[in-house]
């Protein structure tokens, strides 16, 4: 079946602009995760959704970052007033039920803020 998909695959934006990153999880997966990976670094957890609710948003780096999930499926990560330090690969993952389940990752969105 289809895996986790993310769009766009690449996004170049100017400092100060807003961007939206989209994640389509595997059908039927109730848990969805967003991570950020800067060049040569490990994975930084951002947020976790169980259904449409986010039990923990404290991984979001600042109030410029927000995420929502509707219909228990697609999720959007929004970064407002982008800064150069936001440049990174944003990875989305989904799992069947909860955070202890195996996560399946998408290919990521590479964000470059000029």
């Amino acid at each position: 079946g289809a895996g986790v998909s993310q769009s766009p695959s690449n996004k170049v934006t100017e400092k100060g602009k807003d961007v939206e990153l989209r994640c389509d999880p595997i059908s039927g997966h109730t848990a969805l995760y967003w991570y950020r990976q800067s060049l040569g670094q490990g994975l930084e957890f951002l947020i976790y959704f169980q259904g449409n609710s986010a039990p923990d948003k404290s991984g979001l780096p600042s109030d410029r970052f927000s995420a929502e999930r509707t219909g228990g499926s697609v999720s959007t990560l929004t970064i407002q007033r982008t800064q150069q330090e936001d440049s990174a690969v944003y990875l989305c993952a989904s799992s069947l039920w909860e955070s202890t389940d195996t996560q399946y990752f998408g290919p990521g969105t590479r964000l470059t803020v000029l």
Partner: protein
Amino acid sequence: LAKTTQPISMDSYEGQEVNITCSHNNIATNDYITWYQQFPSQGPRFIIQGYKTKVTNEVASLFIPADRKSSTLSLPRVSLSDTAVYYCLVPSSGGSDYKLSFGAGTTVTVRA
């Protein structure tokens, strides 16, 4: 929150066994330990998961001692294609803290 610690890098040669140890001193009773592999420009992919003792699949083995404060991923007879970054993940289960603690990852380089 179970924070994880791994070696930053390891070098090996084709055909050798590679063992990567991850420390997770604050692992909770219900936490499973999962290892992921990541190639450049790709998202991580699942390798193996375990709770205690030993788990083996077609790719790797996972050894977890009785106190569960560490785990060791064992890659038998590595090949050049096993060159990747390996992460251990110990999610926090229960409570309100769902931060997922990936380690910084171990870069494994396999040479001919």
